[in-house]
């Protein structure tokens, strides 16, 4: 097994920014750095493994209390600094296994720490910062909601190691009282239950799927390829409303989110007083 502390998220963060993302005062798991991107400054954020994590239930890229609250503080500082000027793009390099599961986490209100960073991303987007989630590895459950869900545009690597899901397969099987084989079978016909990134992409939430050669080893050419994709997504976000509507207006949504679209149509019609 390769060094678990040297994960994809960290590698791509470092390749894109030329920085480790370590900031005095931040926990070791939080990466934040400013870097040039397409002729402007962009802020990169990510959650990395941390062998010295203070909280025993974190350290393997989980979004825990520190990641949530310090991430919030860093994002709020970016929004405040750009309040009266150009809004820097915010790129989140996502490779996070899940939220942290622990007693301390619940007692200290991890639900609020996660809500806080979600609110910070959403406020950044509505303030005019293009928020782009670059999903290079796992982005599961609470990690997806906390780090990627509020982005104007989500880009994922087209690779078997990339995973966006509500819950890991073995746990989902236990909770729904099915076998892993049954879950796999269901995933073949029920697209939102499938575990491959191609199926997730069908739902229309992603801006693009990016086929990158050797995604475990960023190289000069692939870094340039990813940067181009980010620059394109930033421009697209700047030319669009600051909502998440694009996900519901996509071709994928038209094919696979008919229920969502019907709810919107009927609710809008029934909302106004008759």
């Amino acid at each position, binding site marked *: 097994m390769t060094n678990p502390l040297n994960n994809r998220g960290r590698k791509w963060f470092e390749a894109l920014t030329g920085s480790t993302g370590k900031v005095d005062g931040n926990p070791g798991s939080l990466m934040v750095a400013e870097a040039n991107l397409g002729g402007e400054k962009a802020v990169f954020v990510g959650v990395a493994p941390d062998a010295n994590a*203070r*909280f*025993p*239930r974190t350290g393997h890229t989980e979004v825990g209390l*520190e990641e949530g*609250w*310090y991430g*919030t*503080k860093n994002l*709020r500082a970016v929004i405040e600094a750009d309040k009266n000027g150009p809004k820097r793009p915010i790129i989140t390099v996502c490779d996070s296994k899940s*939220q942290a*599961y*622990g*007693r*301390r*986490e*619940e*007692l*200290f*209100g*991890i*639900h*609020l*720490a*996660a*809500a*806080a960073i*979600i*609110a*910070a991303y*959403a406020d950044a*987007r*509505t303030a005019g910062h293009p928020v782009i989630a670059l999903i290079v590895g796992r982005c599961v*459950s609470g990690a997806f*909601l906390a780090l990627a*869900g509020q982005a104007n545009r989500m880009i994922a690597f087209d690779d078997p190691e990339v995973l*966006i*899901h*509500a*819950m890991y397969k073995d746990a989902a099987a236990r909770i*729904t009282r099915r076998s892993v084989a049954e879950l796999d079978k269901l995933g073949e016909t*029920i697209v*939102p*239950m499938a575990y491959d990134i191609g199926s*997730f992409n069908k*739902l229309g939430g992603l801006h693009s799927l990016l086929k990158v050669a050797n995604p475990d080893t960023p190289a000069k050419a692939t870094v340039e390829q990813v940067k181009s994709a980010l620059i394109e997504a930033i421009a697209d976000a700047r030319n669009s409303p600051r*909502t*998440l509507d694009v996900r519901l207006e996509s071709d994928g949504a038209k094919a696979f*989110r*008919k*229920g*969502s679209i019907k*709810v*919107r149509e*009927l*609710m*809008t019609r*029934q*909302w106004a*007083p008759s």
Partner: protein
Amino acid sequence: MTFTPILSDEVVALSTRRSYIELNARARAQQLLDQGTYRELLGPFDRVESPWLPMQGIVTQSDDGCVVAKGKIDGQPAVVIAMEGKFQGGSIGEVCGMKMAEAFRLARLDNEKGIPTRAVLSLESGGVRLQEANMGELVIAEIYSEMVALRKHTPLIVVIAGPTGCFGGMSLAAGLASYVVMTRQARLSMNGPEVIELEAGKDEFVASDKPFVWSVNGGAQRFATDFADVLLEDDANAVTEAVKDLFRKGQPAQLRTDKYDLFIKRLKSMDPSKQWTGEDIRNAWKAGAK
């Protein structure tokens, strides 16, 4: 001969109290809105049901477990969204989640047009519906987006009554609320007790030990540690009055999700290498506030 009541006021109050917990989602929405103002949107007769459950041989419900109603609260335009804990554990699938997101979106649009529409979310939820997994994840992100946008215009109130409680994705929705109202029976937690025990072991969490579970995520503990603004007995009228009072109070001085300086200070001052109890946290935070 006239009958003279000899019951104490407390007993009389108890005998006339109506439970909120025992109300289903529709009755909860009716309870929260001013009498005679209730108008349900996308009700059962519209028959918009989960497209994904029948494919798995699971019986649908014609409101998908989520009731949305417009009306008035304290005479002001309002929308109430109530989750039904008895249908699929209050889980968030495509249709019910989208109903919630749309209710918030349309309330925001009204507010932007100068119609000050307020919103209450009555939650019973185990989190994302695993039978619609990734659809749920996408819809929940859209719910959050609209909650963050709406709460700039009006207080957004979350009520958690029990018995299901509020877990997973919807616990984060409670985190985004301007105010949280809980009963003692209610629980608020990101990860369910069974999931934590499964992931981290019995030293970390004992899911079958009910007093322990409530000492971590129960209404009384959440109120004592300021994750909830109001703690109530299970009384339907008291819930309605608490919601009205919070709207009269207006926006909170500071949203909970903006309290990063406070929480970072608390994180720095605690020793995470030892295990903590509900009482430890209460005492530490009380001492820190002095």
